[in-house]
Protein backbone atom coordinates (compact mmCIF):
# COMPACT_ATOMS: atom_id res chain seq x y z
CA UNK A 1 0.00 0.00 0.00
CA UNK A 2 2.75 2.41 1.00
CA UNK A 3 6.27 2.09 -0.38
CA UNK A 4 8.92 4.56 0.68
CA UNK A 5 12.16 4.01 -1.11
CA UNK A 6 15.51 5.62 -0.18
CA UNK A 7 13.89 8.79 1.12
CA UNK A 8 16.44 11.50 1.79
CA UNK A 9 15.64 14.94 3.08
CA UNK A 10 18.04 17.61 4.32
CA UNK A 11 17.15 20.98 5.82
CA UNK A 12 19.24 24.16 5.53
CA UNK A 13 21.64 22.48 3.14
CA UNK A 14 25.01 24.21 2.82
CA UNK A 15 24.65 26.22 6.02
CA UNK A 16 26.10 25.54 9.48
CA UNK A 17 22.56 24.50 10.53
CA UNK A 18 22.45 21.72 7.97
CA UNK A 19 20.42 18.84 9.28
CA UNK A 20 19.71 15.53 7.63
CA UNK A 21 16.11 14.90 8.62
CA UNK A 22 15.66 11.63 6.75
CA UNK A 23 18.63 9.54 5.75
CA UNK A 24 17.72 7.03 3.04
CA UNK A 25 14.66 5.72 4.80
CA UNK A 26 12.90 2.65 3.44
CA UNK A 27 9.47 1.76 4.70
CA UNK A 28 6.97 -0.63 3.25
CA UNK A 29 3.45 -1.11 4.55
CA UNK A 30 0.95 -3.72 3.43
CA UNK A 31 -2.78 -3.20 3.21
CA UNK A 32 -4.14 -3.17 6.77
CA UNK A 33 -0.76 -2.63 8.47
CA UNK A 34 -0.82 -0.44 11.56
CA UNK A 35 2.69 0.82 12.24
CA UNK A 36 3.54 2.84 15.34
CA UNK A 37 6.57 5.14 15.16
CA UNK A 38 8.57 6.18 18.20
CA UNK A 39 11.70 8.24 18.56
CA UNK A 40 13.03 11.28 20.40
CA UNK A 41 12.47 14.83 19.22
CA UNK A 42 14.28 15.55 15.99
CA UNK A 43 14.44 11.89 15.01
CA UNK A 44 12.60 12.58 11.75
CA UNK A 45 9.17 11.21 12.62
CA UNK A 46 7.27 14.33 11.61
CA UNK A 47 9.37 14.77 8.48
CA UNK A 48 8.48 11.21 7.55
CA UNK A 49 4.80 12.05 7.95
CA UNK A 50 5.15 15.26 5.97
CA UNK A 51 6.90 13.48 3.12
CA UNK A 52 4.01 11.03 2.91
CA UNK A 53 1.32 13.73 3.15
CA UNK A 54 3.08 15.88 0.57
CA UNK A 55 3.73 18.86 2.83
CA UNK A 56 7.41 18.23 2.09
CA UNK A 57 8.98 16.89 -1.08
CA UNK A 58 11.97 14.61 -0.46
CA UNK A 59 15.34 15.53 -1.98
CA UNK A 60 15.74 11.95 -3.16
CA UNK A 61 13.75 8.74 -3.15
CA UNK A 62 10.19 7.82 -4.08
CA UNK A 63 6.86 7.58 -2.31
CA UNK A 64 4.38 5.12 -3.78
CA UNK A 65 0.84 4.90 -2.49
CA UNK A 66 -1.48 2.20 -3.79
CA UNK A 67 0.94 1.54 -6.64
CA UNK A 68 1.06 5.16 -7.81
CA UNK A 69 4.17 7.31 -7.61
CA UNK A 70 3.22 10.31 -5.45
CA UNK A 71 6.69 11.69 -4.71
CA UNK A 72 6.08 15.19 -6.01
CA UNK A 73 2.28 15.28 -6.24
CA UNK A 74 0.73 18.37 -4.63
CA UNK A 75 -0.47 17.99 -1.04
CA UNK A 76 -4.15 18.56 -1.78
CA UNK A 77 -4.12 16.12 -4.67
CA UNK A 78 -2.74 13.21 -2.74
CA UNK A 79 -5.03 14.07 0.16
CA UNK A 80 -7.65 12.16 -1.85
CA UNK A 81 -5.92 9.00 -0.63
CA UNK A 82 -4.67 10.14 2.77
CA UNK A 83 -6.51 10.86 6.00
CA UNK A 84 -4.67 12.89 8.61
CA UNK A 85 -5.08 13.76 12.27
CA UNK A 86 -2.75 16.37 13.71
CA UNK A 87 -1.26 16.82 17.17
CA UNK A 88 -3.02 20.13 17.78
CA UNK A 89 -6.77 19.59 18.31
CA UNK A 90 -7.29 23.01 16.68
CA UNK A 91 -5.56 21.93 13.49
CA UNK A 92 -7.96 19.30 12.17
CA UNK A 93 -11.23 21.24 12.21
CA UNK A 94 -12.62 24.62 11.12
CA UNK A 95 -13.66 26.37 14.36
CA UNK A 96 -16.24 28.87 13.07
CA UNK A 97 -18.10 26.22 11.12
CA UNK A 98 -20.62 23.78 12.54
CA UNK A 99 -20.03 20.09 13.18
CA UNK A 100 -22.13 19.09 10.15
CA UNK A 101 -20.32 21.60 7.93
CA UNK A 102 -16.97 20.21 9.05
CA UNK A 103 -18.16 16.72 8.24
CA UNK A 104 -19.37 17.94 4.86
CA UNK A 105 -15.87 19.28 4.16
CA UNK A 106 -14.37 15.93 5.09
CA UNK A 107 -16.99 14.08 3.05
CA UNK A 108 -15.67 15.81 -0.08
CA UNK A 109 -12.11 14.57 0.42
CA UNK A 110 -12.53 11.84 -2.17
CA UNK A 111 -15.02 13.68 -4.38
CA UNK A 112 -14.99 16.72 -6.59
CA UNK A 113 -16.55 19.75 -4.94
CA UNK A 114 -19.62 21.05 -6.72
CA UNK A 115 -22.30 23.68 -6.26
CA UNK A 116 -24.67 21.26 -4.56
CA UNK A 117 -25.32 21.77 -0.86
CA UNK A 118 -22.80 20.28 1.55
CA UNK A 119 -25.45 19.47 4.14
CA UNK A 120 -28.67 17.90 2.93
CA UNK A 121 -31.28 15.92 4.84
CA UNK A 122 -29.87 12.62 3.60
CA UNK A 123 -26.28 13.59 4.33
CA UNK A 124 -27.25 14.87 7.78
CA UNK A 125 -28.62 11.43 8.68
CA UNK A 126 -25.39 9.91 7.41
CA UNK A 127 -23.27 12.33 9.51
CA UNK A 128 -25.41 11.64 12.55
CA UNK A 129 -24.95 7.91 12.15
CA UNK A 130 -21.17 8.32 11.86
CA UNK A 131 -21.02 10.63 14.91
CA UNK A 132 -22.80 8.01 17.00
CA UNK A 133 -19.67 5.89 16.67
CA UNK A 134 -17.85 8.38 18.90
CA UNK A 135 -20.26 7.93 21.83
CA UNK A 136 -19.82 11.61 22.74
CA UNK A 137 -23.34 12.82 22.03
CA UNK A 138 -22.07 15.00 19.18
CA UNK A 139 -24.83 13.58 16.95
CA UNK A 140 -27.27 15.81 18.85
CA UNK A 141 -25.14 18.91 18.36
CA UNK A 142 -24.80 18.92 14.59
CA UNK A 143 -25.28 22.67 14.39
CA UNK A 144 -22.89 23.61 17.18
CA UNK A 145 -19.79 25.47 16.09
CA UNK A 146 -16.70 23.30 16.40
CA UNK A 147 -14.85 26.11 18.20
CA UNK A 148 -17.15 25.48 21.17
CA UNK A 149 -16.06 21.85 21.56
CA UNK A 150 -13.41 20.71 24.03
CA UNK A 151 -10.00 19.55 22.81
CA UNK A 152 -10.94 15.90 23.27
CA UNK A 153 -14.22 16.26 21.38
CA UNK A 154 -12.48 18.12 18.58
CA UNK A 155 -9.82 15.45 18.30
CA UNK A 156 -12.47 12.72 18.21
CA UNK A 157 -14.26 14.65 15.47
CA UNK A 158 -10.95 15.09 13.59
CA UNK A 159 -10.37 11.35 13.80
CA UNK A 160 -13.85 10.65 12.45
CA UNK A 161 -13.43 13.22 9.67
CA UNK A 162 -10.12 11.69 8.64
CA UNK A 163 -11.44 8.15 8.56
CA UNK A 164 -15.12 7.98 7.54
CA UNK A 165 -14.29 8.32 3.86
CA UNK A 166 -12.02 5.24 3.85
CA UNK A 167 -8.57 6.69 3.20
CA UNK A 168 -5.93 4.42 1.66
CA UNK A 169 -3.51 5.60 4.35
CA UNK A 170 -4.24 7.11 7.74
CA UNK A 171 -1.55 9.34 9.27
CA UNK A 172 -1.77 10.04 12.99
CA UNK A 173 0.79 12.59 14.15
CA UNK A 174 0.95 12.37 17.97
CA UNK A 175 -2.78 12.88 17.91
CA UNK A 176 -3.25 12.24 21.63
CA UNK A 177 -0.23 14.20 22.86
CA UNK A 178 -2.09 17.43 23.62
CA UNK A 179 -4.88 15.79 25.62
CA UNK A 180 -5.25 14.93 29.29
CA UNK A 181 -4.74 11.22 30.18
CA UNK A 182 -8.43 10.26 30.23
CA UNK A 183 -9.21 12.04 26.94
CA UNK A 184 -6.04 10.58 25.42
CA UNK A 185 -7.25 7.12 26.41
CA UNK A 186 -10.63 7.80 24.86
CA UNK A 187 -9.03 8.84 21.56
CA UNK A 188 -6.65 5.87 21.70
CA UNK A 189 -9.58 3.49 22.11
CA UNK A 190 -11.51 5.19 19.33
CA UNK A 191 -8.49 4.92 17.09
CA UNK A 192 -8.18 1.22 17.83
CA UNK A 193 -11.89 0.68 17.19
CA UNK A 194 -12.11 2.68 13.95
CA UNK A 195 -8.89 1.34 12.43
CA UNK A 196 -9.93 -2.24 13.20
CA UNK A 197 -13.44 -1.75 11.88
CA UNK A 198 -12.37 -0.19 8.60
CA UNK A 199 -9.11 -2.15 8.25
CA UNK A 200 -7.19 1.06 7.60
CA UNK A 201 -3.51 1.11 6.71
CA UNK A 202 -2.22 3.36 9.48
CA UNK A 203 1.00 5.10 10.45
CA UNK A 204 0.97 6.60 13.94
CA UNK A 205 3.67 8.72 15.55
CA UNK A 206 3.70 8.81 19.33
CA UNK A 207 5.92 9.75 22.24
CA UNK A 208 4.05 7.37 24.48
CA UNK A 209 5.84 4.01 24.42
CA UNK A 210 3.00 2.15 26.07
CA UNK A 211 0.61 3.47 23.42
CA UNK A 212 3.05 2.43 20.69
CA UNK A 213 3.03 -1.08 22.13
CA UNK A 214 -0.72 -1.27 22.70
CA UNK A 215 -1.70 -0.21 19.22
CA UNK A 216 -0.85 -1.60 15.85
CA UNK A 217 0.81 -4.72 14.50
CA UNK A 218 4.26 -3.28 13.78
CA UNK A 219 6.57 -0.85 15.52
CA UNK A 220 9.51 1.18 14.28
CA UNK A 221 11.94 3.34 16.22
CA UNK A 222 13.62 6.30 14.57
CA UNK A 223 16.75 8.20 15.44
CA UNK A 224 18.74 10.83 13.54
CA UNK A 225 16.70 10.38 10.38
CA UNK A 226 16.95 6.62 10.24
CA UNK A 227 14.83 3.66 11.25
CA UNK A 228 17.08 2.09 13.87
CA UNK A 229 14.76 -0.63 15.10
CA UNK A 230 11.81 -2.41 13.65
CA UNK A 231 9.52 -5.04 15.15
CA UNK A 232 7.12 -7.19 13.19
CA UNK A 233 3.90 -8.62 14.54
CA UNK A 234 5.44 -11.50 16.54
CA UNK A 235 8.38 -9.50 17.84
CA UNK A 236 6.07 -6.69 18.86
CA UNK A 237 3.90 -9.03 20.92
CA UNK A 238 6.89 -9.79 23.17
CA UNK A 239 8.02 -6.19 23.59
CA UNK A 240 7.70 -4.20 26.79
CA UNK A 241 8.67 -0.61 27.53
CA UNK A 242 11.78 -1.87 29.37
CA UNK A 243 12.87 -4.01 26.45
CA UNK A 244 12.35 -1.11 24.06
CA UNK A 245 14.48 1.20 26.20
CA UNK A 246 17.18 -1.43 26.50
CA UNK A 247 17.10 -1.88 22.74
CA UNK A 248 17.36 1.86 22.24
CA UNK A 249 20.36 2.15 24.53
CA UNK A 250 22.08 -0.80 22.96
CA UNK A 251 21.80 0.76 19.50
CA UNK A 252 22.77 4.21 20.73
CA UNK A 253 25.79 2.73 22.53
CA UNK A 254 24.60 3.75 25.97
CA UNK A 255 24.01 7.35 25.13
CA UNK A 256 22.65 7.80 28.61
CA UNK A 257 19.68 8.82 30.61
CA UNK A 258 18.82 11.94 28.70
CA UNK A 259 17.40 9.87 25.88
CA UNK A 260 15.44 7.76 28.26
CA UNK A 261 13.75 10.80 29.64
CA UNK A 262 12.98 12.03 26.15
CA UNK A 263 11.29 8.83 25.20
CA UNK A 264 9.29 7.70 28.19
Amino acid sequence: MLEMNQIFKVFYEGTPDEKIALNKVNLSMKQGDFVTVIGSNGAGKSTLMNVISGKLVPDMGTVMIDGVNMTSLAEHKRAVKIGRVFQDPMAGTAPTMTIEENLALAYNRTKKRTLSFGVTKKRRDFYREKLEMLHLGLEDRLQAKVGLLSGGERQALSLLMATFTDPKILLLDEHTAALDPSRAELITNLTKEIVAKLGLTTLMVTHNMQQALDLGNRLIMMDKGQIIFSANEEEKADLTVEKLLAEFQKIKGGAGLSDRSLLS
Partner: protein
Amino acid sequence: MMTAMFGAVESGVIYAIMALGVYVSFRVLDFPDLTVDGSFVTGGAVASIMITAGYDPFISTIAALFAGFLAGCMTGILHTKGGINPLLSGILMMIALYSINLRIMGKPNVPLLAEETVMTKIESWFTSAWSVLLFMLVLTLIIKLIIDLFLKTEIGLSLRAVGDNEGMVRSFSANTGWMKVLGLGLSNALVAFSGALIAQYNGFSDVGMGIGMIVIGLASVIIGEAVIGDSKIARATLAVVVGAILYRIIVTLALRIEFLDTGDMKLITAIIVIIALIMPKVLDKQKEAARKKKRLAQLNADGGGPVA
Protein backbone atom coordinates in the same frame (compact mmCIF):
# COMPACT_ATOMS: atom_id res chain seq x y z
CA MET B 1 -33.14 66.76 5.69
CA MET B 2 -35.59 64.11 4.50
CA THR B 3 -34.24 64.20 0.95
CA ALA B 4 -30.71 63.91 2.29
CA MET B 5 -31.71 60.88 4.38
CA PHE B 6 -33.55 59.34 1.45
CA GLY B 7 -30.43 59.74 -0.69
CA ALA B 8 -28.31 58.24 2.08
CA VAL B 9 -30.46 55.11 2.26
CA GLU B 10 -30.63 54.87 -1.52
CA SER B 11 -26.87 55.01 -2.02
CA GLY B 12 -26.37 52.91 1.12
CA VAL B 13 -28.29 50.06 -0.49
CA ILE B 14 -26.05 50.21 -3.58
CA TYR B 15 -22.87 50.45 -1.47
CA ALA B 16 -24.13 47.40 0.43
CA ILE B 17 -23.26 45.28 -2.62
CA MET B 18 -19.67 46.53 -2.34
CA ALA B 19 -19.73 45.82 1.40
CA LEU B 20 -20.91 42.26 0.70
CA GLY B 21 -17.86 41.89 -1.52
CA VAL B 22 -15.61 43.13 1.27
CA TYR B 23 -17.34 40.69 3.61
CA VAL B 24 -16.40 37.80 1.30
CA SER B 25 -12.71 38.70 1.23
CA PHE B 26 -12.28 40.16 4.71
CA ARG B 27 -14.46 37.84 6.80
CA VAL B 28 -14.98 34.66 4.78
CA LEU B 29 -11.48 34.37 3.32
CA ASP B 30 -9.77 36.30 6.13
CA PHE B 31 -7.90 38.20 3.43
CA PRO B 32 -7.63 42.01 3.87
CA ASP B 33 -7.97 42.83 0.18
CA LEU B 34 -7.12 46.40 -0.82
CA THR B 35 -7.86 45.71 -4.49
CA VAL B 36 -11.32 47.07 -3.69
CA ASP B 37 -10.17 50.70 -4.01
CA GLY B 38 -9.21 49.99 -7.59
CA SER B 39 -11.82 47.46 -8.67
CA PHE B 40 -14.67 49.73 -7.54
CA VAL B 41 -13.48 52.31 -10.08
CA THR B 42 -12.87 49.60 -12.67
CA GLY B 43 -16.55 48.73 -12.40
CA GLY B 44 -17.57 52.36 -12.81
CA ALA B 45 -15.11 52.87 -15.67
CA VAL B 46 -16.16 49.80 -17.67
CA ALA B 47 -19.87 50.54 -17.26
CA SER B 48 -19.63 54.25 -18.08
CA ILE B 49 -17.39 53.79 -21.11
CA MET B 50 -19.71 51.10 -22.48
CA ILE B 51 -22.79 53.20 -21.80
CA THR B 52 -21.30 56.24 -23.57
CA ALA B 53 -20.41 53.90 -26.45
CA GLY B 54 -24.10 53.08 -26.75
CA TYR B 55 -24.35 49.67 -25.05
CA ASP B 56 -27.35 48.72 -22.97
CA PRO B 57 -26.76 49.94 -19.38
CA PHE B 58 -27.69 46.54 -17.91
CA ILE B 59 -25.21 44.72 -20.14
CA SER B 60 -22.59 47.35 -19.30
CA THR B 61 -23.15 46.79 -15.59
CA ILE B 62 -22.82 43.02 -16.00
CA ALA B 63 -19.60 43.58 -17.97
CA ALA B 64 -18.31 45.65 -15.04
CA LEU B 65 -18.96 42.66 -12.79
CA PHE B 66 -16.74 40.46 -14.95
CA ALA B 67 -14.00 43.10 -15.06
CA GLY B 68 -14.01 43.16 -11.26
CA PHE B 69 -13.86 39.37 -11.18
CA LEU B 70 -10.71 39.42 -13.32
CA ALA B 71 -9.09 42.09 -11.14
CA GLY B 72 -9.79 40.05 -8.01
CA CYS B 73 -8.44 36.88 -9.62
CA MET B 74 -5.23 38.74 -10.47
CA THR B 75 -4.75 39.70 -6.82
CA GLY B 76 -5.37 36.08 -5.87
CA ILE B 77 -2.85 34.83 -8.39
CA LEU B 78 -0.24 37.36 -7.19
CA HIS B 79 -0.73 36.01 -3.68
CA THR B 80 -1.04 32.28 -4.29
CA LYS B 81 1.18 31.72 -7.32
CA GLY B 82 3.57 34.64 -6.77
CA GLY B 83 3.82 34.10 -3.03
CA ILE B 84 3.29 37.81 -2.31
CA ASN B 85 1.91 38.81 1.08
CA PRO B 86 -1.90 39.36 1.02
CA LEU B 87 -1.83 43.07 1.88
CA LEU B 88 0.91 43.78 -0.61
CA SER B 89 -0.73 41.89 -3.47
CA GLY B 90 -3.88 43.94 -2.89
CA ILE B 91 -1.95 47.20 -2.80
CA LEU B 92 -0.03 46.31 -5.97
CA MET B 93 -3.24 45.48 -7.80
CA MET B 94 -4.88 48.67 -6.52
CA ILE B 95 -2.04 50.80 -7.86
CA ALA B 96 -1.97 48.94 -11.16
CA LEU B 97 -5.73 49.38 -11.52
CA TYR B 98 -5.43 53.16 -11.12
CA SER B 99 -3.59 53.34 -14.43
CA ILE B 100 -5.76 50.67 -16.02
CA ASN B 101 -8.89 52.58 -15.02
CA LEU B 102 -7.49 55.76 -16.59
CA ARG B 103 -6.78 53.76 -19.75
CA ILE B 104 -10.32 52.37 -19.80
CA MET B 105 -11.91 55.79 -19.35
CA GLY B 106 -9.38 57.70 -21.43
CA LYS B 107 -9.81 60.69 -19.12
CA PRO B 108 -10.15 61.12 -15.36
CA ASN B 109 -13.89 61.76 -15.43
CA VAL B 110 -16.68 60.37 -17.65
CA PRO B 111 -20.04 62.14 -17.24
CA LEU B 112 -23.19 60.03 -17.70
CA LEU B 113 -25.81 62.71 -17.13
CA ALA B 114 -27.02 62.75 -20.73
CA GLU B 115 -26.92 58.97 -21.10
CA GLU B 116 -29.48 56.28 -20.53
CA THR B 117 -28.41 54.45 -17.35
CA VAL B 118 -29.82 51.70 -15.20
CA MET B 119 -31.28 54.42 -12.96
CA THR B 120 -33.05 56.31 -15.75
CA LYS B 121 -34.41 53.03 -17.07
CA ILE B 122 -35.81 52.04 -13.70
CA GLU B 123 -37.36 55.48 -13.28
CA SER B 124 -38.97 55.19 -16.69
CA TRP B 125 -40.49 51.78 -15.78
CA PHE B 126 -42.00 52.71 -12.45
CA THR B 127 -42.79 56.38 -12.10
CA SER B 128 -42.32 56.69 -8.38
CA ALA B 129 -39.74 58.42 -6.20
CA TRP B 130 -39.24 55.06 -4.48
CA SER B 131 -38.52 53.09 -7.64
CA VAL B 132 -34.71 53.20 -7.53
CA LEU B 133 -34.59 52.50 -3.80
CA LEU B 134 -36.94 49.54 -4.01
CA PHE B 135 -35.32 48.10 -7.13
CA MET B 136 -31.85 48.34 -5.59
CA LEU B 137 -33.06 46.93 -2.29
CA VAL B 138 -34.51 43.88 -4.02
CA LEU B 139 -31.35 43.48 -6.10
CA THR B 140 -29.11 43.75 -3.04
CA LEU B 141 -31.20 41.26 -1.08
CA ILE B 142 -31.15 38.81 -3.99
CA ILE B 143 -27.35 39.08 -4.09
CA LYS B 144 -27.23 38.59 -0.32
CA LEU B 145 -29.40 35.48 -0.68
CA ILE B 146 -27.21 34.08 -3.44
CA ILE B 147 -24.13 34.57 -1.24
CA ASP B 148 -25.87 32.85 1.68
CA LEU B 149 -26.74 29.87 -0.50
CA PHE B 150 -23.36 29.76 -2.21
CA LEU B 151 -21.54 29.64 1.13
CA LYS B 152 -23.49 26.48 1.98
CA THR B 153 -22.52 24.60 -1.18
CA GLU B 154 -19.57 22.24 -1.19
CA ILE B 155 -17.39 24.85 -2.89
CA GLY B 156 -18.70 27.56 -0.58
CA LEU B 157 -17.94 25.47 2.49
CA SER B 158 -14.36 24.92 1.45
CA LEU B 159 -14.05 28.65 0.67
CA ARG B 160 -15.11 29.42 4.24
CA ALA B 161 -12.79 26.78 5.63
CA VAL B 162 -9.84 28.36 3.77
CA GLY B 163 -10.36 31.49 5.85
CA ASP B 164 -10.81 29.43 8.98
CA ASN B 165 -8.14 26.74 8.87
CA GLU B 166 -6.21 26.55 5.63
CA GLY B 167 -4.04 23.54 6.53
CA MET B 168 -7.11 21.52 7.42
CA VAL B 169 -8.92 22.12 4.11
CA ARG B 170 -5.80 21.16 2.20
CA SER B 171 -5.67 17.89 4.14
CA PHE B 172 -9.21 17.33 2.83
CA SER B 173 -8.02 17.69 -0.74
CA ALA B 174 -9.25 21.23 -1.49
CA ASN B 175 -7.03 23.35 -3.71
CA THR B 176 -6.67 26.27 -1.32
CA GLY B 177 -4.80 28.43 -3.81
CA TRP B 178 -7.58 28.37 -6.40
CA MET B 179 -10.17 28.75 -3.67
CA LYS B 180 -8.56 32.04 -2.69
CA VAL B 181 -8.40 33.18 -6.30
CA LEU B 182 -12.08 32.33 -6.74
CA GLY B 183 -13.06 34.06 -3.49
CA LEU B 184 -11.18 37.24 -4.35
CA GLY B 185 -12.65 37.16 -7.85
CA LEU B 186 -16.19 36.94 -6.50
CA SER B 187 -15.50 39.61 -3.92
CA ASN B 188 -14.18 42.09 -6.46
CA ALA B 189 -16.94 41.20 -8.95
CA LEU B 190 -19.45 42.44 -6.38
CA VAL B 191 -17.34 45.51 -5.67
CA ALA B 192 -17.08 46.43 -9.37
CA PHE B 193 -20.81 45.77 -9.84
CA SER B 194 -21.51 48.21 -7.03
CA GLY B 195 -19.04 50.70 -8.54
CA ALA B 196 -20.86 50.50 -11.87
CA LEU B 197 -24.20 51.20 -10.22
CA ILE B 198 -22.81 54.05 -8.10
CA ALA B 199 -21.33 55.68 -11.21
CA GLN B 200 -24.74 55.57 -12.85
CA TYR B 201 -26.44 56.73 -9.67
CA ASN B 202 -24.11 59.72 -9.33
CA GLY B 203 -24.19 60.43 -13.06
CA PHE B 204 -20.43 60.19 -13.60
CA SER B 205 -17.49 57.91 -13.07
CA ASP B 206 -14.29 59.36 -11.69
CA VAL B 207 -10.84 57.84 -11.38
CA GLY B 208 -10.71 58.91 -7.73
CA MET B 209 -14.09 57.54 -6.69
CA GLY B 210 -12.59 54.42 -5.14
CA ILE B 211 -10.28 56.08 -2.64
CA GLY B 212 -10.95 54.72 0.83
CA MET B 213 -13.57 52.29 -0.48
CA ILE B 214 -12.06 49.37 1.47
CA VAL B 215 -12.43 51.34 4.70
CA ILE B 216 -16.07 52.13 3.88
CA GLY B 217 -16.61 48.43 3.20
CA LEU B 218 -14.96 47.50 6.49
CA ALA B 219 -16.97 50.16 8.31
CA SER B 220 -20.18 48.63 6.94
CA VAL B 221 -19.13 45.10 7.93
CA ILE B 222 -18.06 46.15 11.42
CA ILE B 223 -21.02 48.45 12.15
CA GLY B 224 -23.41 45.76 10.94
CA GLU B 225 -21.79 43.08 13.11
CA ALA B 226 -21.94 45.37 16.14
CA VAL B 227 -25.66 46.06 15.60
CA ILE B 228 -27.01 42.79 14.17
CA GLY B 229 -24.39 40.16 15.08
CA ASP B 230 -22.82 37.45 12.94
CA SER B 231 -23.79 34.15 14.54
CA LYS B 232 -24.99 32.67 11.24
CA ILE B 233 -24.07 33.34 7.62
CA ALA B 234 -27.51 34.71 6.71
CA ARG B 235 -27.38 36.98 9.73
CA ALA B 236 -23.85 38.16 9.02
CA THR B 237 -24.68 39.11 5.42
CA LEU B 238 -27.85 40.89 6.56
CA ALA B 239 -25.66 42.74 9.07
CA VAL B 240 -23.40 43.87 6.23
CA VAL B 241 -26.35 45.29 4.25
CA VAL B 242 -27.74 47.07 7.30
CA GLY B 243 -24.26 48.28 8.23
CA ALA B 244 -23.75 49.81 4.78
CA ILE B 245 -27.03 51.75 5.04
CA LEU B 246 -26.30 52.82 8.61
CA TYR B 247 -22.88 54.02 7.56
CA ARG B 248 -24.41 56.30 4.90
CA ILE B 249 -26.90 57.67 7.42
CA ILE B 250 -24.17 58.35 9.97
CA VAL B 251 -22.06 60.17 7.36
CA THR B 252 -25.05 62.23 6.19
CA LEU B 253 -25.81 63.22 9.76
CA ALA B 254 -22.18 64.04 10.45
CA LEU B 255 -22.01 66.28 7.38
CA ARG B 256 -24.88 68.35 8.74
CA ILE B 257 -22.62 69.56 11.51
CA GLU B 258 -21.71 73.16 10.62
CA PHE B 259 -17.91 73.08 10.59
CA LEU B 260 -17.56 69.77 8.75
CA ASP B 261 -17.55 69.78 4.96
CA THR B 262 -17.43 67.08 2.29
CA GLY B 263 -13.65 66.99 2.37
CA ASP B 264 -13.83 65.65 5.92
CA MET B 265 -15.66 62.56 4.72
CA LYS B 266 -12.65 60.22 4.87
CA LEU B 267 -11.73 61.45 8.35
CA ILE B 268 -15.30 60.80 9.48
CA THR B 269 -15.14 57.32 7.96
CA ALA B 270 -11.89 56.55 9.77
CA ILE B 271 -13.34 57.77 13.06
CA ILE B 272 -16.51 55.71 12.59
CA VAL B 273 -14.46 52.55 11.97
CA ILE B 274 -12.24 53.25 14.99
CA ILE B 275 -15.29 53.75 17.20
CA ALA B 276 -17.01 50.66 15.83
CA LEU B 277 -13.86 48.61 16.50
CA ILE B 278 -13.20 49.92 20.01
CA MET B 279 -16.74 50.27 21.37
CA PRO B 280 -17.60 46.56 21.63
CA LYS B 281 -14.42 45.95 23.62
CA VAL B 282 -15.09 48.84 25.97
CA LEU B 283 -18.67 47.66 26.50
CA ASP B 284 -17.47 44.11 27.21
CA LYS B 285 -14.99 45.39 29.78
CA GLN B 286 -17.67 47.43 31.49
CA LYS B 287 -19.99 44.44 31.64
CA GLU B 288 -17.17 42.30 33.01
CA ALA B 289 -16.37 44.89 35.68
CA ALA B 290 -20.03 45.13 36.68
CA ARG B 291 -20.23 41.36 36.95
CA LYS B 292 -17.10 41.19 39.11
CA LYS B 293 -18.45 43.88 41.39
CA LYS B 294 -21.69 41.99 41.81
CA ARG B 295 -19.89 38.73 42.54
CA LEU B 296 -17.67 40.44 45.11
CA ALA B 297 -20.66 41.98 46.86
CA GLN B 298 -22.33 38.58 46.97
CA LEU B 299 -19.18 36.96 48.28
CA ASN B 300 -18.83 39.54 51.05
CA ALA B 301 -22.47 39.00 52.04
CA ASP B 302 -21.90 35.23 52.24
CA GLY B 303 -18.78 35.72 54.31
CA GLY B 304 -16.53 34.25 51.60
CA GLY B 305 -15.12 30.77 51.10
CA PRO B 306 -12.56 29.00 53.27
CA VAL B 307 -8.99 30.30 53.10
CA ALA B 308 -6.80 27.78 51.36
